[in-house]
């Protein structure tokens, strides 16, 4: 185990936690509400993360730290373990989270200036960052779940930051409840894992899958349950509805939580637990991802709100990542997660800068010509847009290309061409809507002159994040080599071996590694036995999978480049104004021509309305029925019981009055008094009479005694 890395990991986690406590308690007493503390602590955490990343870069081991400790002792020799895990995936996630978080903190110091709850906002950001770091540092499902819920909570808090606005508080509730829905599935998955494996350690789960401890229907249920959680958090169809509404939160929050990190948690979970999912589940995952990518991209085509476009774009790109993981593209999926985090955060922060400059106007139909007012923002936004559109050479190009190659290779071997069609058409749509947005916002003539005249370039704390993220959008593709090298999804056994060497082991993990060591070709055999496409994908250099991948690679690259360029050109044709203010094609006319399609897309396929009708109305109707039932039946029974009690007490009262009081209490007293009255007649007070009676009694007694002793009356 790498002790330096362990210390760094703990420090990265603890620093924001401590400053969260400080800010949460004392922000009102600190100058500037303590924002400089939050920002500088995140900068420190970023430095540590980069150090961890650098060490991991130059280290051939797959896992560096895997430390467990008894967290919740339960039975003899049995405890729920908590623990920390640092491998290559964690290292890169740490960098992503701390970098974006640091930049967002920096950006917020200007963007949120003068906000009523400035200190609370920064405390929320810090708590979110802590939770997200805990989520990626966990080495077991329990800790992951805890932090998973915490990021959900902080997301709720930050979406509802301006809770005076009804739409914001509604959106917060919607986000919380929708993701909770997915979390219920995730909890079921965790419970199935615990019941089947007896442990929630990643290592134990992988070992159990290899050994058959978690197999068959249980493995499917566990996989589907866990993926359901990922669907909620990563806004996959049909649980994606909360993400566009979440744009009610402050824009930097959208950049941090709803573009770069929290929504990527679902992808992270799916990638981390990839060996746990069985082939049918993986296929399900791929279809969900592919469909979501295409579905969300079509909605993004017609949206007018600058943040809504980005939100649907995020849903679409998350669909890409899920699709990649579903077809076994561990490397490409997580690679895209990283590049996407950078350029999408850049886009959101750019949008934030624009919104800030335009006095909180979010409608793109009010924008236009901003490049003359905000040149640096425009350049950074353009770089990020090119990266998202998949322009050759930019970071998004490499990661998206890797995904498409994986999908194409998968389809060549296994069919399922829908995934390919969805993937490639999304490339085209993405390029189109992103350039529509870019042209509408930054080029042409200003549509709202009043706002345009007041627009200005952002101050430096807002520009630095944009420049950093814009640069990363260009060069982020260079990290492809890093992801190619980490590749720990080869098989469960490889993972278990890596985790075991990093310090922590259990008997189950030992036995699996021992078994695979005994077998001649352990891992090819095991993956073939399970029919695992994932194992096949990396079985060897000359497997059909590798050949397909090789062939698919150039095909995918060429095709996606052509489609991206076509999308960009089409976007330019529709929205890039010439000198006379006209565009080559008129989008209004096309919208009129296809009014039905436009209306459906504009209303997001009426999904919110459908949910309203299906779930909300059903729930309300159920509530009304239950209320009526309560009022009539339950309350009736309650009242009847009350009436019965009353009647019973009435009867008892009568009994008490007549029998107890009348007969027993007063009756006995009266009898005694009567007898006393009768007896005291003899007490006349005449001494002579008493004497007479005494003599009389004496005579009687002596007569009786005489009779008794002698039997006769004679003397």
């Amino acid at each position: 185990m790498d002790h330096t890395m362990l210390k760094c990991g703990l420090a990265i986690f603890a620093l924001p936690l401590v400053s969260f406590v400080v800010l949460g308690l004392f922000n009102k007493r600190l100058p500037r509400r303590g924002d400089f503390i939050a920002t500088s602590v995140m900068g420190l955490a970023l430095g540590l993360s980069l150090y961890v990343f650098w060490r991991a870069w130059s280290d051939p081991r797959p896992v560096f730290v895997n430390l467990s400790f008894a967290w919740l002792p339960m039975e003899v020799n049995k405890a729920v373990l908590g623990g920390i895990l640092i491998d290559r995936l964690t290292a890169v996630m740490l960098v992503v989270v701390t970098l974006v978080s640091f930049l967002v903190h920096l950006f917020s110091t200007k963007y949120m200036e003068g906000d009523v709850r400035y200190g609370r906002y920064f405390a929320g950001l810090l708590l979110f960052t802590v939770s997200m770091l805990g989520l990626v540092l966990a080495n077991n499902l329990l800790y992951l779940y805890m932090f998973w819920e915490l990021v959900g909570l902080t997301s709720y808090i930050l979406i509802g930051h301006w809770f005076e606005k009804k739409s914001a508080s509604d959106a917060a509730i919607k986000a919380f409840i929708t993701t909770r829905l997915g979390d219920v599935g995730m909890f079921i998955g965790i419970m199935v894992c615990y019941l089947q494996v007896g442990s929630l350690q990643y290592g134990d789960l992988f070992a159990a899958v290899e050994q058959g401890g978690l197999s068959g229907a249980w493995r499917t249920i566990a996989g589907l349950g866990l993926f359901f959680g990922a669907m909620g958090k990563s806004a996959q169809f049909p649980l994606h509805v909360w993400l566009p509404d979440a744009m009610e939160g402050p824009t930097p929050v959208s950049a941090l939580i709803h573009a770069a990190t929290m929504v990527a948690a679902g992808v992270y979970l799916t990638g981390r637990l990839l060996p746990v999912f069985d082939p049918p589940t993986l296929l399900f995952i791929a279809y969900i991802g592919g469909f979501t990518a295409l579905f969300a991209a079509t909605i993004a085509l017609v949206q007018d709100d600058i943040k809504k476009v980005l939100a649907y774009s995020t849903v679409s790109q998350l669909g890409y990542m899920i699709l990649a993981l579903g077809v076994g593209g561990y490397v490409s999926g997580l690679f895209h997660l990283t590049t996407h985090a950078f350029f999408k955060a850049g886009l959101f922060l750019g949008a934030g800068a624009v919104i800030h400059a335009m006095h909180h106007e979010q409608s793109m139909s009010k924008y236009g010509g901003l490049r003359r007012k905000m040149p640096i923002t425009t350049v950074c936004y353009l770089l990020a847009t090119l990266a998202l559109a998949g322009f050759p050479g930019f970071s998004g190009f490499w990661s998206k290309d890797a995904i498409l190659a994986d999908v194409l290779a998968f389809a060549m071997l296994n069919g399922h061409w829908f995934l390919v069609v969805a993937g490639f058409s999304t490339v085209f749509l993405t390029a189109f809507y992103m350039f529509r947005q870019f042209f509408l916002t930054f080029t042409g003539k200003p549509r709202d002159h009043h706002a345009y005249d007041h627009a200005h370039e952002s101050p430096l704390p807002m520009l630095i994040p944009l420049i950093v993220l814009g640069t990363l959008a260009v060069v982020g593709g260079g990290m492809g080599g890093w992801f190619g090298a980490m590749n720990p999804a080869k098989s469960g056994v490889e993972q278990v071996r890596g985790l075991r060497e990093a310090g922590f082991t259990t008997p189950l993990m030992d036995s699996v590694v021992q078994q695979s060591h005994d077998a001649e070709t352990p891992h090819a055999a095991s993956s073939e036995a399970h029919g695992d496409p994932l194992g096949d994908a990396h079985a060897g250099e000359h497997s059909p999978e590798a050949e397909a991948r090789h062939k698919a690679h150039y095909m995918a690259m060429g095709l996606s480049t052509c489609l991206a360029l076509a999308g960009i050109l089409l976007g330019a044709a529709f929205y890039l104004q010439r000198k006379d203010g006209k565009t080559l094609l008129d989008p209004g006319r096309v919208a009129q021509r296809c009014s039905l399609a436009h209306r459906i897309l504009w209303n997001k396929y009426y999904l919110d309305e459908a949910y309203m009708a299906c779930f909300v109305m059903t729930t309300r109707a159920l509530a009304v029925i239950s209320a009526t039932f309560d009022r009539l039946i339950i309350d009736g029974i309650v009242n009847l019981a009350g009436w019965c009690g009353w009647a019973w007490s009435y009867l008892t009262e009568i009994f008490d009055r007549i029998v107890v009081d009348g007969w027993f209490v007063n009756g006995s007293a009266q009898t005694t008094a009567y007898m006393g009255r009768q007896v005291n007649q003899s007490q006349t007070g005449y001494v002579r009479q008493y004497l007479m009676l005494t003599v009389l009694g004496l005579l009687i007694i002596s007569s009786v005694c005489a009779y008794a002793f002698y039997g006769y009356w004679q003397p």
Partner: protein
Amino acid sequence: MNTTLLTSAGFSSTQPVGLLWYLTAAAILFALGLTACMARRNAIGILIGLELILNAAILNFMAFWRFGQSATNDTSMAGPMMGIFIIVLAACEAAVALAILLNLYFNFGSVEVDKANRMRL
């Protein structure tokens, strides 16, 4: 009453006066005293009745001493001593009773015991 029965009981004109004569006299005396106690309303009458009862007792003691001594060959003076005791006792009793009587008179204005038929005023 038949002479034989009286004679067999100890009463005889030919015999000297025996024990039974004394006992009978004492019994009559006792009965008279008791009757006085029961019948008289006047407290002084009752007191006189009580004296009669005590005298009857003395007479009994003396008679049993006089006639019992020859039979048991007893030479003690128990009978007269008891008589003297009872006379002393009667004197004390008379003193106390007369004190009560005086109080009775002060409180009720008369010495009729029937008027004092309550334990309080």
